[in-house]
């Protein structure tokens, strides 16, 4: 749930990355900043970003992976299960 919304469309420019999208979301929903950013303004360790179902951190270029048209990003908290 993104500050009351389940999803939102993102318009990004050519060549922009997952990390760019992360900060774009924060521009659109500033209420998320205290939850997603640490005191240095970087993504918190516990915010996991998924690109089309894959943990972006596991991709070769990590959060710098370039986006393509129609890509889907998910922002998930740390999930530990029962």
């Amino acid at each position, binding site marked *: 749930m993104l500050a009351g919304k389940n999803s939102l469309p993102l318009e990004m420019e050519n060549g922009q990355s997952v990390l760019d999208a992360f900060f774009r979301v924060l521009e659109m929903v500033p209420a998320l900043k205290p939850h997603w950013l640490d005191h240095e303004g970087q993504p918190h360790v516990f915010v996991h970003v998924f690109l089309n179902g894959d*943990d972006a951190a*596991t991709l070769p270029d990590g959060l710098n992976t370039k986006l393509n048209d129609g890509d889907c990003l998910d922002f998930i908290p740390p999930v530990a299960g029962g």
Partner: protein
Amino acid sequence: MDQITITQLKESHRLLTEFKYAVQPVVHGYANRTLYINLDSNTITIKPVDQKMKDTFTGGKGFCLWLLWNAINSDTKWDDAQNELVVAGGPIGGITAYPGSGKCTVVTLSPLTKSIIDSNSGAYFGPYLKFSGFDALEVQGKAKEDVVIFIDGDNGTVSIEAAPLDEVNTHLLSKQLTDLYGGETDKGKRAISVMSAGQAAEHVPMCGVNVSYWDSRRQEIRIKQAARGGAGTVLRNKRIKAIVVKYSDTGGDSNGAANMELIRAAGKRINKEISDFDASQNDMRHLGTPYLVEIMNKFNILPVQNFRFGSDPEASKINGEVWKSMFDFRGPDGCWYGCSLQCAHAVPHYHLQSGPYKGEAVFVDGPEYESLGALGSNLGIFDPPAMLELCFYCDTYGIDTISAGNSMAFAYECYEKGILDQQKTGGLELTWGNAEAAYELLHQMARGEGFGVTVGQGVRVMKSLFAEQYGADPQQLQDMGMEIKGMEISEYISRESLAQQGGYAMASKGPQHDEAWLIFMDMVHKQLPTFEAKAEALHYFPVWRTWFSLHGLCKLPWNDIIPVSNKTAKEPAKVPEHVENYCWLYEGLSGKKTSPEDLMAQSEKVYNFQRLFNVKMGFGTRQHDYPPYRLIGPATVEEYENRKDLYDTQLREIIGVDPDGKSVEEKIRLVRQHRENQYEQLMDAVYLRRGWTKNGIPTQATLQRLGIDFPEAMAISAAHGG
């Protein structure tokens, strides 16, 4: 029916025996005694706890296993008088400076698995038992009439009382006994914890125990469950209506800690973290475990229609946000003093739609994620009131929601496949989404009549019955029957996580996620790419998770809140800062310098001992560690078609077979061959890492290394090739 008054209830109780003892203070987390009750002879005695027992078994589940080991033989059955119900908190349990410190563990010979089961619960029983003077409680024998056992830690008495008029169902019985033994004041009621089951425990093997505490802010009885494996059925088989413990003087240092400063330092660190970050992470304090529904659905892990599918568009109707709007936030939601995680939510004023209490407004504890998976998505029911109805009745009747949900889902699928029909179900239409049928099955379990009693025997019994009586294909039933070792599988689809398949199927007690939950590490974060990495995880995490039940602690504060330091941690999945907290807790309690390796050593002894105990009882070998195929891969055409792209890609890229032109049946066969082979290799790797033989037996060298090499243990290992 007129409700009985407390005066009438008191007059109806007849004292069968009373035992007096001197209450001694707890020292460094231990009462240094255990309580033994025999219901055949109505005798009560105290047993000493020596240093060797503490060094070897630590406490909690470890003590329970050791006491049961000494009480039963290899041919004891679950319903023999010789079987025991053993309950313990743990040395750290009962502290109030660190969240999640009020757990108790119940151990017994299970009516479901026929082997050793352990299950744990929150609420006040574990700490109160210890503060009353006992590190563990053993109950052996069977009463000749319905009884209540009352442990009064305020006055140093233990009594067995005939209890002919007490209710059986938990929501009424817990209230009666809290009023009877706690009196009219909040202080008195807060001193009471009641362990009970319910009507269904007299008829079906899948019943757990409920453990209560008094919520003075809401003026309600609250309950948590040690639900898995049938401890409630054992309780009622012994004709125990309830075990009540009373202790009024809980304080911040009731554990007799050696160094409270260190304990407080750990508590201060975790409490600040929860305060700062819970709302940004899982928001346990408002959502509780139901937050998982949406995420599991997103990742195709939510069981839908008997684990056939991993997601459903309707899942959002029962996700965390729905419950947040219904939960009662009038007061704190910790199930033990000082818990800042506060995940034990509840829904007030729910009006029952069915059964003996139809029309009454009740207070429903939960629902938890597991119950929503089992009784909701797995049955195709996505209706919040129906969830509350099913959860309420499961709890008050004593039924485990996971076993009930999976067993009903199995029956629903058999109905869909024509194995069952209305004639066989006594007129019930078991179609996906039919909540009324599910209600009726629960009521039948409680009444001990109708098809509900068959469903209540669990999936393993139904598989045999339906093959024998209705001519169903045993292999088909085996593939779709979601149980391992006789216990129903908890609510995560593990098809795309080989490590989680092992986590479920190689778990000692049966497929419960509290021993190893590796899906996200393996499938989502891809941190376990090799057999060796999976085997290491299936060594470390089950052993580590065992540690919590040795100490009377809840696992959630370990990894349901993540510290900032995880950003630079070498192994973030282990949450090293929190492991350090636990070292501080044990060191603060015991006064002994403590490392993470010391904590692991405590657990590894007990973990291997439990495995060996299973071997002693005729289980615990490789043949018992196999899951049903549906846990490993797509068992039917519809399951394959549901994720065709994924499986076709795997055929092409991993298995090296071109799927084009092949029938779905042929593709299922090829995928199955590959995945079953992978599972065999995983077993070999895990057993090797654990120091077990290829047949899953802890070797004599392993027993020696762990210091559990006493003669009977070594003989069992040797007799099985260890």
